[in-house]
């Protein structure tokens, strides 16, 4: 009997500990936001790559002693998927979540899950933004604005001057721009380069397809959400297959380890460069400083990428988050980001600002990036990105990769691309 007493007591103790553990794990952590310690508010910002926020964070925190900023950079797709999961789950999203234009339609259709920035007074920004940029995150009825634009892509062509020199090609940026007024000429230059050096000219077929598609009037979908493969996609796809048949592609998969290695090893000599790509090259291959330069892209202006900052409704510090968001998109901060990582602001008035207009990027042989990219951004026709844009792009890119790895004949590729795109549009 005595034994059974202690037995019982032990069981209760074990049970109690177990329950406490379960409760502790399931309960919403009250210290997570850091609200407890002396009234400070912690604002979490989720983004990918390099948004150039490190120094801004320090400055903002110094000016607002009650605010702490937590920067959380992750992989591009993973960040968007994470945000989507948190929106479904109903909690856990960052106070400020960055989204890219490729995902804008997806999140815009769930505008009830985001703070309507118009309610916070963001309407005053409308006149400052590129009109198409403003519309990209505006809900269909025009009543809810879920995000404020940070940067736009613009397009240019980055190239390696040392490799061009070795191949007997000109290295001066104007002469290089003159080499390729059209994509046909661009592919010919590529053949010339590959013929002279035995090395590959471009990094991958998909990184030819995407910028060319970005230059077309229409993307995969029209505004009625109908798949239109015969317009823009056909043009971009034909050039891509032509380039692959010319044998000038290094067949790398972008944003993967081998691709990053390619920047340092000289596996390719040119790369389509939206403004945000400059930061990526600089971060990935710091050793190649001074070997790069920037020329015009064949075929005129176009856009590839560009981001927005949103505030999910789940944020428990909406007011503080909006204050920070508003501060981040002010001219002064936008110019600083541009200088730091190359991201081109989406407020056209800033392009005339001497701080941008006269800025030269030392990493890229002092290329006048403040002239090149704004010209592209202003001259472009905005393209509607449909609801199924993401999956459709993945499927068509996969067809290109199959041509690249030799498992699909180039003549059969277009029919296959159409089939795959239709599959994605129904997904």
């Amino acid at each position, binding site marked *: 009997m005595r034994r059974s007493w202690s037995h019982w007591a032990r069981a209760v103790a074990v049970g109690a500990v177990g329950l406490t553990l379960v409760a502790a794990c399931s309960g919403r952590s009250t210290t997570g936001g850091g609200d407890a310690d002396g009234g400070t508010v912690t604002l979490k910002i989720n983004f990918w790559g390099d948004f150039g926020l490190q120094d801004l964070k320090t400055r903002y925190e110094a000016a607002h002693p009650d605010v702490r900023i937590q920067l959380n950079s992750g992989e591009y797709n993973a960040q968007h998927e994470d945000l989507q999961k948190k929106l479904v789950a109903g909690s856990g999203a960052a106070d400020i979540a960055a989204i890219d234009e490729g995902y804008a339609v997806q999140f815009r259709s769930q505008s009830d899950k985001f703070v309507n920035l118009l309610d916070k007074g963001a309407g005053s920004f409308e006149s400052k933004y590129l009109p198409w940029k403003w519309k990209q995150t505006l809900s269909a009825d025009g009543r809810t604005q879920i995000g404020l634009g940070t940067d736009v892509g613009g397009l240019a062509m980055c190239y390696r001057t040392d490799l061009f020199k070795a191949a007997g090609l000109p290295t001066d940026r104007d002469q290089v721009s003159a080499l390729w007024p059209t994509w046909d000429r661009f592919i010919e230059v590529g053949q010339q380069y590959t013929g002279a050096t035995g090395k590959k000219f471009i990094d991958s077929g998909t990184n030819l397809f995407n910028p060319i598609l970005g230059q077309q009037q229409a993307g995969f979908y029209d505004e009625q959400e109908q798949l239109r493969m015969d317009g823009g996609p056909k043009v971009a796809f034909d050039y891509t297959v032509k380039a692959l048949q010319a044998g000038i592609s290094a067949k790398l998969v972008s944003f993967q380890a081998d691709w990053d290695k390619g920047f340092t090893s000289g596996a390719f000599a040119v790369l389509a460069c939206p403004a945000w790509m400059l930061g990526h090259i600089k971060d990935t291959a710091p050793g190649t400083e001074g070997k790069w330069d920037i020329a015009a892209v064949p075929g005129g202006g176009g856009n590839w990428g560009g981001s927005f900052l949103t505030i999910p409704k789940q944020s428990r510090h909406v007011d503080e988050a909006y204050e920070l968001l508003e501060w981040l998109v002010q001219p002064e901060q936008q110019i600083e980001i541009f200088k730091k990582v190359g991201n081109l602001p989406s407020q056209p008035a800033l392009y005339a600002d001497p701080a941008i207009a006269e800025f030269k990027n030392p990493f890229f042989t002092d290329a006048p990036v403040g002239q090149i990219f704004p010209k592209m951004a202003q001259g472009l026709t905005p393209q509607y990105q449909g609801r199924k844009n*993401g999956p459709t792009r993945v499927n068509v890119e996969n067809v290109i990769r199959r041509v690249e790895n030799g498992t699909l004949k180039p003549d059969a590729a277009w029919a296959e691309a159409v089939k795959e795109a239709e599959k994605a549009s129904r997904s």
Partner: protein
Amino acid sequence: MPDTRRLTWRDRLYRFDMRYLPYLMIAPFFLLFAVFGLFPLLFNGVVALRNYELDDPTLPYWAGLDNFTRLAGDEDFWNALYNTFGIFLLSSVPQLLLALVLASLLNRRLRAQTWWRVGVLLPYVTPIVASTMVFSVFFSRDFGLANWLLGPFGGGDAPIDWRADKLHSWIAVATMVNWKWIGYNALLYLAAMQSIPRDVYEAAAIDGAGPWKQLWRITVPMIQPVVVFTVVLSTIGGLQLFTEPMLFDLNAQAATGGPNGEWQTIAQLIYKVGWKDLNLGYAAAMSWALFLIILVIAGINTWLTSRLSGGRT
């Protein structure tokens, strides 16, 4: 004659201890299972009958069996099912056979016995993401060690592109799975083998049975319950294969398992449909289908294994 005295506090306690405490002690498992196992399973079933497309909230709430009928005609689903079974066969069969051989070797008298036995478990404790990353480089087209090793034997001039066709990619993924699980299964077998009396082997040896015959005629039948257990375990694991095929893809986030879905498994497809295509209802229907398939296959496997290894049911 029944005792009619009132029960004392101590008696009640005793009765509680004997009768109810065991249930109380095992209850936490069932509570946790209900919360984290049963509820998601049932909720998943409900979602499978719904239209749940994140980017299109205008659809009607209930979809009925639409998601399931769509499944029947979805070539991606059948392709993924085919891949999953292909990789499953290429991994489970060699894996369990090699584990058996390895275990019978470890069961002999060896120098530094413990060292070897712990050693075979090392792949199992390696984080799966880390080892897959290494294998991903190992099977790379241009600079991969696999192609370098195969070089002297290879007939063709071109290096094998391990990610370009089904068979090569299956072999690559199955290799990762095997590497991780052979040692683990071997230790399970070894534990069972330890309980087989030595004199059975001695008698068999006198009767002229060699090591190979001893393995198949004595060891396997005598550890049959463990064999069945490992077969069920590897069936469940094999049909849910996710991390290895996912990270083997150069463009891992897309979850397509190769440009033409060469090695896309069902678990990967479910992830893609749910989080890339944002169709949670359809993904739920797929999960349910996978659940049923696993039940059926595990059943067939158990039956087959017990048949093959002498049916000691």
